[in-house]
């Protein structure tokens, strides 16, 4: 329930609530993200790999991109310019690749600290 509420702190969501996220809640979300990345690493890797070979048909990438867009349309405020950028298939490749790379670089035991550093640098 708490995690569900925390998701609404994302200003891109339709159900955005202007609650300031606390530091311990921010840390908790990072820990969850890192643990999920560890668990999902084989899938993340396959999505990245499917786009590497231009000659091969990138079915996994296309499926992921399709689902990504579906979820954004369903849950995010599509009137926002930033969300429109995420939905634009010509532009969102770079955003998706970089997000997946960040997750794949943070699966070690120090992944929590690494992800935190990446986020502070943004």
């Amino acid at each position: 329930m708490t995690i569900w509420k925390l998701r609404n702190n994302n200003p891109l969501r339709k159900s955005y609530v202007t609650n300031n996220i606390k530091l311990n809640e921010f840390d908790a979300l990072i820990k969850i993200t890192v643990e999920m990345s560890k668990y999902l690493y084989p899938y993340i890797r396959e999505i990245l790999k499917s786009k590497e070979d231009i000659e091969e048909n990138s079915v996994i990438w296309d499926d992921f991109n399709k689902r990504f867009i579906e979820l954004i349309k369903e849950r995010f405020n599509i009137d926002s310019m930033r969300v429109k950028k995420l939905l634009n298939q010509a532009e969102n490749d770079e955003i998706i690749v970089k997000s997946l790379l960040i997750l794949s670089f943070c699966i070690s035991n120090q992944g929590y600290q690494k992800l935190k550093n990446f986020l502070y640098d943004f």
Partner: protein
Amino acid sequence: MIQNKLSFHQSSASLEIIGLPDYSNNEIKDQISIISQWKLTIADKPLIEGKIEHLGPIMNAFYIYSNLLIKNEIPIYESKLIDIKAENLHIHNILLKSSKPNVKPLVLKIGNSLLSDTINCFDQLNESPKVRIKKTDIPIKIAKKLRFGLNKNVKFFNFFIPPFIAICSLILFSSSFIYFYSPFENIEKKELISPE
């Protein structure tokens, strides 16, 4: 003396470290502190191996490059030992230069998946309690305060340099129109006014 061997695996990449414990430092026999050899195996790519002094710079190169890649900066890393450049969003070109003369550099093309496998192998090595290596200056080790300090310096320069250049160029431009005092001209004028 039998050398210790430790391997770190991540999907299609594996890193092997061979060496000995430092008995003078009362280390246990499973420990590796004196690295004699290392091998990085990436699936379908030639074997990368080298001396201990090459391991640190190569790990550094991968860490710095991966940071540049995700921070929206130009992903290029160049050094005496290794160059890494992005061919496109998904492929990276690695050029490994041999320290031996007359040995051609090794060129590797790896995708994002192999890049993350390699980075994760290096992470496992860094975190392993059984291997003690001279810690590399990887970005994760930079203290948060120092990092922000560096960013502030960059922002400070970005903020002040454009107006500073503007003022300099204004001074240079306007200096060409400065009227210099000429005493001979003044004497001539005076003579014209009073012809006595």
